[in-house]
């Protein structure tokens, strides 16, 4: 009890500020004392870059901004700065992330800590600037830690935490903090901004395994024998697994300082006693919590398990909460075409498909999904399970209030308008 009281007194409240998710990330970067920021603007990430530049211009942040000409260069410059021995940050979305994809691998393989924010957005064609998780989930295999915020507070807290976790000698891998485009990036909500002293206490001076600078004739990344390459990959894998312990420690300590505990790789909302479980990532899992309460009022014992971390993967937590459920509903905001949502594939393998499992695809390209929609999804799955017993449905689209199994049967997709087709036919017949 005495210890608890002592811990409580350590909690130091910050300043509550209404701000957009992107601003929350910018303040986190400032509080983390990043010294180099290199980024290329892309909707909906832009505000992060603008805000950081504003903070630097006003003299509130001691950092240099490198105004690079592309995302490829943004991550490369951020990486160069990190290798040179300073805390460095970048941010992007969608096509920007696709453009820097090869650099992601290079950074992770070199084991130098770098932090990046990914403001999730659909990838074209056609153009769509709204939320989808295809971009962030494509980083899954690159060797970066990947965390996903549910709200703006978490976007700030996870960014500060990410610097600490990535710079821990047990980890030394780069990290991505994801936040949903517009839904968080542009939404204003109260965010408690911790004091600088608190962050300084939480985040030790920068640590990294080596630097590239004069006086040390080492080469990073020259050709390596195949066997050594494989061992290098094995070591990255071990470090990623080790990262979960580091996250738990850092999250607990952050909780002691701020009152906001992030020791869990997942956030569990009423999932212990639940018969049914929602699993998913990102902001809509907040709506899923409301849906859980609404469903419980109707006598259906639901719970919601949000994966706060995608890498390292919360295998143990998923199994602890998910294995014994009647059914697990995985909400996916992106699809691996022809199969299922990426989160479903991950969760399904962890649960060995023991419970009934339904992968629901929804909200792709910014389509609004709220708690009522999630209640509808739940009721549909419950009736499915009651009717058929154990089910395994990798991909069930929920689109504008209706359900569409991927097979059999037609999907409600629009076709090319007739006048466009006609024009195409005309052009084609002229050619031939």
């Amino acid at each position, binding site marked *: 009890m005495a210890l608890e009281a002592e811990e409580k007194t350590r909690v130091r409240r910050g300043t509550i500020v209404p701000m957009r998710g992107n601003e929350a990330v910018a303040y986190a970067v400032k509080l983390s004392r990043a010294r180099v920021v290199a980024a290329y603007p892309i909707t909906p990430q832009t505000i992060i870059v603008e805000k950081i530049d504003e903070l630097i211009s006003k003299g509130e942040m001691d950092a240099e901004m490198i105004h690079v000409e592309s995302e490829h260069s943004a991550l490369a410059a951020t990486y160069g700065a990190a290798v040179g021995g300073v805390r460095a940050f970048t941010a992007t979305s969608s096509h920007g992330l696709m453009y820097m994809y090869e650099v992601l691998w290079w950074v992770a393989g070199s084991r130098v800590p770098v932090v990046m924010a990914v403001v999730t957005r659909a990838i074209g064609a056609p153009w769509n600037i*709204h939320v989808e998780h295809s971009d962030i989930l494509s980083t899954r295999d690159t060797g970066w830690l990947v965390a996903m915020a549910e*709200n703006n507070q978490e976007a700030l807290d996870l960014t500060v935490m990410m610097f600490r976790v990535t710079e821990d000698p047990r980890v030394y891998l780069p990290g991505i903090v994801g936040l949903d485009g517009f839904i968080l990036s542009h939404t*204003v*909500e109260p965010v408690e901004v911790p004091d600088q002293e608190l962050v300084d206490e939480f985040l030790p001076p920068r640590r990294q395994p080596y630097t590239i600078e004069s006086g040390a004739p080492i080469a990073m990344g020259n050709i390596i024998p195949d066997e050594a390459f494989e061992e290098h990959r094995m070591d990255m894998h071990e470090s990623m697994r080790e990262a979960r312990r580091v996250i738990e420690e850092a999250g607990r300590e952050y909780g002691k300082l701020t009152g906001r505990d992030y020791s869990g790789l997942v956030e569990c909302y009423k999932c212990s006693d639940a018969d049914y479980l929602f699993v998913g990532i990102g902001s809509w899992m*907040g709506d899923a919590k409301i849906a859980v*309460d609404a469903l419980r009022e109707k006598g259906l014992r639901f719970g919601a398990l949000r994966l706060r971390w995608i890498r390292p993967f919360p295998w143990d937590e998923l199994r602890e909460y998910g294995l014994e459920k009647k059914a697990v509903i995985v909400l996916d905001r992106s699809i691996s075409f022809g199969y299922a949502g990426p989160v479903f594939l991950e969760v399904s393998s962890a649960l060995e498909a023991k419970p009934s499992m339904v992968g629901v695809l929804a909200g792709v390209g*910014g389509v609004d999904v*709220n*708690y009522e*929609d999630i209640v509808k999804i739940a009721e549909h799955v419950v009736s499915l399970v009651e009717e058929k017993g154990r089910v395994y449905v990798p991909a069930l689209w929920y689109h504008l209030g209706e359900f569409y199994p991927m097979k059999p049967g037609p999907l409600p997709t629009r076709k090319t308008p007739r006048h466009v087709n006609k024009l195409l036919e005309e052009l084609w017949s002229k050619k031939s």
Partner: protein
Amino acid sequence: MYKLLREKSVEIRFHGRGGQGAVTAATLLVAAALNEGKWGQAIPSFGAERRGAHVLAFARVSEKPVPIHSQVRWPKIIVVLDPGLLLVEEERKRVLAGASSDTIVVANTPEPVDVGGVKLYYVDATRIARELGLVVAGWPVVNTSMLGALAKATGIVSIDSVLNAIKSYWPGRLGELNAEAAKRAYNETKLAQAEKITVTG
């Protein structure tokens, strides 16, 4: 939390035209709510934001935080920044979408207009903005006036909180002017008499 959402939270939808400051209005509302120890959230316009286009913003004010980020589909309060949005049938439909019998519309209009039987509070915010010289690039900026009207009509935040939020958002003369607009609108906001309204299907 579902109970909290239904009973202790208010969902608000702002309708304006690009450039009128609907998003800023929603943001200031959050600051005002926070000022009173409440929780608030402002979600900006979804879609291409172009000057003059019909723009939506959403806000939630709640006694305690609500973990929700979806759009507002069933608003308890609808704030209309541009009178024209209630005159064109197609736009009026969008404004009133999801409204129920206990919804309140707070509109910028010199005279009461037909809002399909929903309770209407109105104020001539355009006139107030012009009188105070709150005109940017030829456009009267009515968002702060409408916050004053919102405070009067619904009481979800006090006029003092609105004024504080405005003054800290724009320190100096601009803040004073906008605060004056909010105050005037607060005083001039009227409840439309029921008999004046023609209820349509």
